[in-house]
């Protein structure tokens, strides 16, 4: 038994060790996806493969999937005692790791005093993995690129050159992909070195005792947070756009004592397009969302997952069967957060937020630049987040993804694109006592004088983000060309010179009835053009004198009374 002080000291140290692991990885990475967008995770695991600590940097789809991958697949199949110093394992199996082939999970055992004592793992998004480019078009996994079943990347310090050669022969930009694989290995090596320094300093044989206590304490804290919820069944379902046809995500949360079960039975069956989600990814965004709502101050590790069970029927969109296509799985996976929070709103309305745009908007362009060289560029953009019981939703902010956007100047410096406009989208935030976050609106064109291929990965163009407890939905998204046509939001088309594509990103849902919003806040929104004067009147019942920019109190009272009455009579 370690005393609580020593435990906390070592625990803090472990967190700094994984941050050093992540820093080494990020700084030696070759891709903006890893560095600027932060599409990665890094963590340390005990002998049995239980994740103890994760780095601050990262995104939920990688962190929690990596945790499951190491515990359920890597440690059982390659027990640490069967490995040698200098060994490193690699996999991109979507079902065992993070849900699509793009993510490479790289895991290294650490040896100390002649014995395996821990694992370091990280998962990074590779900029290419061969096959069709990123998007939802594929009909099966086999079209989506190179699969790397769990195998050794390094054997006793020597790189598995056959594997590297196979990767090199399969991907479009081998330097970047292989460069990042080495960066991932560097991260694990730095982590291992720092862990050994720590073991030396505290004269510990391994981290088993620390792990057991941290995981148990985390588990107890999460159980306590669950116990604070009344026992019961909490449910919600949402409609989502799907590829061609709309889909459904249904969730049922059962709270019983200090345990919580999430069951997605009733969600749509899997589809023959690359938007299917493996259970591991569903589990990742489910546990992430629950931790953020129920236990934001508690560390995210294996102990946190123990009281939470996640189920989805095999063959459903949230637990697809091999070899379903899965490349753009985030378009569905990010949405599990939405019904979960709404279901919890019944008991903890102050700890959740209304629905938001949820799925990141990924824009990929490729073609020839003016010099005749091939270019390919991808960037991520965020719509609005849902409002909370005491505050407006955040505008143009990614949730639940932990990823960041890219500046216009960086986009235009890297690719022959012209962003003609990028600004907040007025009236896109769902009306409410607290308003949903605004989406954004951007206009793009190609300036090479040649055609470019535009791959769209956009959602909420059919299904709006619902408001909560009387709040109204945010605006839906839209993709439109200057000729008036509308490209498929999850496929690709040819963008011609002179054509302008407009992307209107969805807004977040409001919280509470719009008639309860303080008229002063409505006026302020109108002054700042977050909402139009028409919306102030139509959605909030606030009548504004345009010349003086003041509220007409009498007219507002009358209008609001009328709206409330209409609502009640509905």
């Amino acid at each position: 038994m370690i005393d609580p002080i020593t435990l906390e000291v070592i625990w803090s140290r472990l967190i700094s060790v994984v941050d050093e692991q992540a820093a080494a990885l990020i700084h030696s990475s070759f891709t903006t996806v890893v560095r600027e967008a932060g599409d990665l995770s890094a963590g340390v695991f005990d002998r049995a493969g239980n994740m103890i600590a994760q780095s601050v940097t990262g995104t939920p789809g990688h962190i929690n999937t990596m945790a499951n991958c190491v515990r359920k697949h890597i440690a059982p199949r390659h027990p640490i005692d069967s490995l040698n110093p200098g060994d490193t394992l690699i996999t991109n199996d979507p079902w065992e790791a993070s849900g699509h082939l793009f993510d490479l999970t790289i895991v290294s055992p650490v040896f100390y005093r002649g014995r395996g004592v821990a694992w370091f793992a990280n998962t990074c998004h590779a900029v290419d993995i061969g096959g069709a480019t990123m998007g939802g078009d594929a009909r099966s996994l086999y079209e989506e690129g190179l699969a790397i079943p769990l195998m050794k990347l390094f054997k006793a310090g020597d790189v598995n050159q056959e594997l590297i050669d196979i990767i090199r022969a399969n991907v479009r930009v081998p330097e970047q992909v292989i460069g990042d694989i080495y960066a991932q290995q560097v991260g694990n090596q730095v982590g291992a070195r720092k862990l050994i320094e720590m073991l030396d300093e505290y004269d510990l044989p391994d981290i088993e005792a620390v792990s057991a206590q941290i995981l148990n304490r985390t588990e107890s804290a999460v159980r306590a947070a669950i116990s604070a919820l009344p026992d019961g069944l909490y449910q919600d379902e949402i409609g989502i756009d799907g590829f061609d046809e709309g889909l459904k995500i249904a969730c049922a949360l059962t709270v019983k004592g200090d345990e919580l079960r999430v069951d997605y039975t009733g969600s749509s069956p899997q589809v023959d397009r690359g938007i299917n989600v493996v259970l591991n990814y569903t589990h990742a965004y489910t546990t992430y969302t629950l931790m953020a709502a129920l236990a934001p101050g508690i560390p995210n590790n294996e102990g946190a997952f123990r009281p939470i069970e996640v189920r989805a029927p095999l063959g459903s969109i949230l637990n697809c069967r091999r070899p379903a296509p899965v490349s753009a799985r985030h378009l569905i996976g990010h949405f599990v957060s939405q019904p979960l929070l709404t279901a919890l709103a019944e008991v903890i309305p102050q700890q959740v937020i209304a629905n938001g745009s949820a799925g990141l908007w990924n824009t990929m362009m490729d073609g020839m630049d003016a010099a005749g060289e091939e270019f390919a560029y991808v960037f991520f953009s965020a719509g609005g987040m849902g409002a909370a019981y005491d505050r407006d939703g955040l505008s143009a902010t990614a949730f639940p993804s932990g990823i960041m956007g890219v500046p216009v100047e960086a986009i235009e410096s890297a690719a022959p694109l012209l962003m003609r406009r990028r600004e907040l989208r007025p009236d896109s935030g769902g009306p409410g006592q607290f308003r949903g976050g605004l989406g954004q609106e951007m206009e793009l064109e190609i300036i090479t004088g040649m055609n470019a291929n535009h791959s769209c990965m956009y959602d909420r163009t059919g299904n709006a983000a619902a408001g909560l407890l009387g709040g109204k939905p945010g605006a839906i998204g839209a993709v439109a060309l200057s000729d008036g046509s509308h490209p498929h939001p999850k496929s690709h088309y040819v963008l011609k010179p002179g054509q302008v594509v407009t992307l209107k990103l969805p807004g977040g849902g409001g919280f509470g009835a719009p008639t309860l919003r303080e008229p002063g806040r409505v006026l302020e929104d109108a002054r700042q053009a977050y909402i139009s004067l028409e919306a102030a009147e139509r959605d909030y019942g606030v009548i504004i004198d345009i010349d003086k920019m003041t509220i007409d109190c009498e007219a507002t009272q009358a209008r609001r009374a009328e709206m409330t009455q209409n609502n009640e009579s509905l």
Partner: protein
Amino acid sequence: MTLPQLLLAVDIGGTFTDIVVFDPQSRQIWVEKLLTSYPDPAAAVLDGVSALLDSQAISPDAIRYVTHGTTLITNTLIERKGAKTALLSTAGFRDAIEIGNEGRYDMYDLALVKPKPLVERRLRFDVPERTLADGTIWQELDTNALAGICDQLKDEGIEAIAICFLHAYTNPAHELAALERVQARLPGLPVSASHQVAPGMREYPRASTTVANAYVQPITERYLARLDRGLRQSGIEAPLNIMLSSGGTTTVDAARAFPVRLVESGPAGGALAGLYWGKRLGHRDMLAFDMGGTTAKAVLTRAGELSISNQSEVAHVHRFKRGSGLPLMVPMIEMIEIGAGGGSIAHLNRLGLPAVGPQSAGSDPGPAAYALGGVEPTVTDADLLLGYLNPDYFAGGDLPLDVNRSRTSFERLAAALGLSVDSLAWGLHQLVNENMASAARVHAAERGLELRRYSMVATGGAGPVHACGVAGGLGIRRIIIPPLAGVGSAFGFLTAPIAFDFTRSYVARLSELDLSELNGILRDLETEGRRIVAGAGVPADDISAQLSIDMRYVGQGYEVRVPFPMQRLDDNHIAVMQGAFEAEYRRFYGQLAEGVPIEAVNWRVLITGPAPQIDALVSRSGSASADSPPACRPVRFAADAPPQETPVFRRDQLSEEWRADGPAIIEEAASTTVVLPGWTARMAADGCLLLLREDER
């Protein structure tokens, strides 16, 4: 007899204003500390300077050099008390300062708050114009629209204007044209243009910096004018130099044009002081560690150079959360700040484990021991319970400490953890040391530095108390405790050279550099920098220019900064640049990415004058001889062992030959140095204390 040539430094902090006068001839130093005066901070400065000069019978015209740093700018941004500011941006991009990076700085916080832009949306104006990434004009500037906007600005009563057009860092023509027209139509209003304030790529941080500059410009202008006038009226003819966040000083005029570069000038002075003391004792790789009442700061130097970053933040929503502040793209000494100070409060975290900070009892009510109403257990209380602090000689005896209150404050937490109060105090001391060591460790890892061969300079009220513990956790074996701990920043200002630097983004592969264009850019930057430095009265021959280039492998996003001789570049220099980059890259990452092309990203031109020469201070050795018997008190150095009877020394009584093996305690008014068992302490040059790990002697 010639008039003495004295140096004066003034540091305005949030609470105190520090004044230091140094006489290079007699090598004597005088200090004055007084409360910062609000709302007119210049008042305290002028009072303090007069008082100090009077008391030492110094004639004002003996002062030949004045340098000044202030937190005024930072506080204006934190308190949102700046000018009513408008932003003119490329049409369609006025929301860049609100959209930001679209990320969340804390993944698990659903109630996250982002920093509010300094300019509200209705005061951000769309100006039709467009420049492309390569600098070509895509759409001409619409001057009629601009004229209409100017009329609106007038009607609104705008006090300051920021202009930020896309890609202005590549081609500033439109910003310059707009600047000229705005100044012509609205004479007297300060206007900040992004290509001058922050000429780097990325519209969000560039616009954020430009807006911050405009926002603080009127208040800085008024304040500096008042101070400058006041100093002259009190007979000080020497020009006023203003401390920059990059560690150089500049003229009042340049400071007025770029006030955002004054942010964090106080901590910059602290870092310079650390650098100075380290160099004095022959250490060039240093961790400057400063621990005060609410925070601890750390700065790393390598080979005697401070690391300057162009990416920082100010006015955080959560002080210690990266990403929660307004981004600033100005040269700033890289430092980390964590919520660990003497006032940091111990509590149980959600895992039921003890944790310290970032909540702080500050100085009001302060730690429980202050008996000023604080009841929460703090780091200072732990240090008192362990015997590290002397209850009767804290702050030189001005603030008596009540050890019983400390004990009481620990009882509940100790009971919850099943520990004795003393074990808990020991544990918290360890914990806060580990927190600081961890932060320094990650900071060093991000820069590819290995701390084991570093020396530490420890300052601040709590720094010397925790120095051995933190150093131990980092494998550091040498610690310097400099004199003048109470006025470290002001002293650091005295060591700063007059300097100004510009960083321009100009991204190109080394193999594809357009040298004639690049030479033009570098020449312009150098000319402008020389103009500013010469303006501070530095003779042209004493001005030097340095170039550094941020380079990376194509595809990477983090650059490695490589110093390079400032010269007209020709084709032969390309291979040399590559070699310099590879050497630096190998140091960072161990191996090169062979075959991958290299690109240059940022070009930094630093123009400096000479730094004031402060060769040595008169070390004020004490009257007591080394063998006079010290006092003793019981001090705890382990969780389970009983306290050890430990000798206690007064720093001002130590002779130049003094030395002692740990454990030992050395007290002074501003701090207490704890020498742990396994360390040894001795007096070194200039009144510095030097602590060495035993095997280091």
